[in-house]
């Protein structure tokens, strides 16, 4: 049983309730109503309170009030939000705009609380009273908005002491050039990695291209910066040269692979950042891709009946795909939206083309600076573009 009510609050309590409000992860959505004359801003602001951003691809498209309200309902259902608070509700341009939002909130099983410190009577209060939203006074709105958050704050990215820019000279002069051009502190960091790679390769030099490819791939597996990548490549070349081999490869290909791919799955904070896209299918597509699904073999075959209302996959060993806890609300929201769109159990869960899904993955990487995983079936595909050759020194190539 959901409720809608209008709280007339003390201004200080009202501001505090906004300042200390929880997030959608805590089951509460708080939107500060802005003074505006268009209803779409009201809907967009509720979506923004859930996490949607205005500066990602697709955010400026106006999909119509019906779609906006369906998105609101789907996200609220996906996150199992229990309370939606509209602060400064008296700022709304037309009180009747609240009606459809209240319906969407109710359909998602959440309570709607309008808060204002304007006055406990007047046209807005009269409208609320006439539309089944009793006016309550003297209640601290913080009781509705403040939650004991179960989410840890995003971890600070570890400082990367490794210089981003290092010389691009050939391997036989690279270390000398690095010593000449880098500040001593930076060179010390670079040289530490250089020596470590050099020592490991000299200890067991790869004698052919395949082995050298595997060696380079393993050395670069945990590297995320271009400076580290170039250092590893040059140190490997120098070490192989002293062992009697000339290693030739396309350094730019290694750099591109390192920049694009951290070879790890998304963490909770990165997954939550996917709420930036108001359309749940974008985040869902990224998360299915992150889990290792391919479009042709897995995603396009996923039907609505394969996803439970709880957001888990069922049938035909689909439960083998693992998802982070923070990914589950995306699956629930996407499922809820598909049901609202009229999809049946045998309809696709992700009614998008392979190109759309590929676009979504690319957008998320560039808009949100997310890392990605290597292609599921060919994790070492990127190393083919290295065009690596190994030639014993003294023989012609």
């Amino acid at each position, binding site marked *: 049983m959901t409720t809608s009510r209008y709280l007339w609050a003390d201004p200080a309590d009202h501001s505090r309730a906004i300042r200390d409000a929880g997030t959608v992860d805590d089951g509460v959505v708080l939107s500060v109503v802005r003074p*505006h004359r*268009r209803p779409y801003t009201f809907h967009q602001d509720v979506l923004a309170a859930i996490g949607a951003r205005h*500066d990602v691809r697709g955010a400026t498209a106006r999909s119509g009030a019906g779609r906006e309200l369906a998105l609101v309902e789907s996200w609220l259902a996906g996150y199992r939000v229990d309370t939606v608070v509209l602060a400064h509700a008296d*700022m709304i341009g037309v009180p009747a705009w609240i009606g459809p939002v209240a319906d969407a909130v109710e359909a998602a099983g959440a309570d709607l609380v309008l808060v204002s410190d304007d006055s406990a009577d007047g046209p807005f209060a009269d409208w609320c009273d006439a539309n089944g939203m009793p006016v309550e006074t003297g209640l601290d709105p913080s009781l509705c908005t403040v939650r004991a958050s179960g989410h840890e704050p995003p971890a600070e990215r570890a400082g990367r002491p490794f210089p981003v820019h290092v010389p691009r000279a050939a391997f036989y002069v690279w270390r000398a050039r690095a010593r000449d051009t880098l500040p001593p502190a930076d060179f010390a960091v670079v040289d530490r990695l250089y020596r470590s790679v050099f020592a490991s390769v000299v200890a067991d030099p790869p004698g052919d291209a395949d082995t050298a490819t595997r060696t380079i791939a393993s050395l670069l597996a945990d590297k995320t910066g271009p400076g580290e990548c170039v250092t590893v490549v040059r140190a490997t070349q120098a070490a192989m040269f002293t062992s009697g081999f000339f290693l030739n490869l396309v350094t730019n290909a290694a750099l591109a692979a390192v920049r694009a791919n951290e070879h790890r799955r998304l963490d909770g904070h990165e997954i939550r950042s996917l709420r930036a896209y108001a359309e749940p299918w974008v985040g869902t597509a990224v998360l299915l891709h992150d889990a290792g699904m391919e479009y042709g073999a897995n995603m396009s075959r996923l039907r609505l009946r394969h996803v439970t209302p709880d957001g888990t996959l069922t049938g035909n060993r689909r439960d083998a795909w693992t998802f982070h806890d923070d990914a589950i609300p995306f699956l629930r929201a996407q499922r809820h939206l598909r049901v609202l769109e009229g999809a049946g159990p045998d309809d696709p869960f992700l009614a998008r083309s392979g190109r759309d899904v590929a676009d979504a993955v690319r957008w998320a990487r560039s808009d949100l600076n997310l890392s990605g995983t290597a292609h599921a079936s060919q994790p070492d595909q990127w190393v083919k573009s290295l065009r690596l050759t190994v030639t014993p020194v003294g023989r012609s190539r």
Partner: protein
Amino acid sequence: MTVTDRTQVPFSAILRDDPAVTPYFRDAYAKIRYATEENAIVAIDGPPGTGKTTCAVYAADRVARPAVIVTMSDRPAPLDVLRHSYQAVTGERCGRLTRYDLGNLLGDTLPEWGGLLVVDELQNAQVSAMKELVWLHETTRGGFALAAVGSDVLEAVARYPQLESRVLTSATFAPLEGDDLLAAVGRLHPGFALADPADVFVHDRVVCRGLIRTWAHTARVLADDDPSVPVTGPRFAWARGVLMARRTA
């Protein structure tokens, strides 16, 4: 210097030397600093020429945060408060951005910026501008400090009770009198400090009326006088002639 955008600082508020510190100035300065530390809203009221904007610019230059000054024109357009704030904070012209876009961009920018936004002559703004400011302050969860400056600004914010009730503290400037006047004008021109107080009070009664801005004009007119020599009655009279002639003209 922390004011990152000086294009909207009024000419009269640009200081060449240290300001004339009056009790009103001291009170307002302390309150602006306090409100800035609290990311709160402060109102600075007082008649024209009493030093409100000078104090706000001086304080904005000395808080350990970025700060910008936004000045409302006599009849500001509905979006001016958003446009000017966006331009001052980001340094970019807002071009054809809509109200919705400007609100979104400022909503993202202001908490990251986390500085002091001084809105001068806020009394000229419509209630809609005050609504935008309250919305920005609330939706950013108090991510920046706001100083509302202007003549009768306290009366102006009362037109929008949600802003009035969110003003954490306020300071009111007034025309200077007695010893406060003598101390303040003595900082503007050393010759004023050495002058006969009776001459100072006569000049104040006739032309300056306790307004620090008019006293600053007097100091400018007498800038070529020897600072080690007291300004005499006839010199004050000559300065009055210049100032009154300017007014008559």
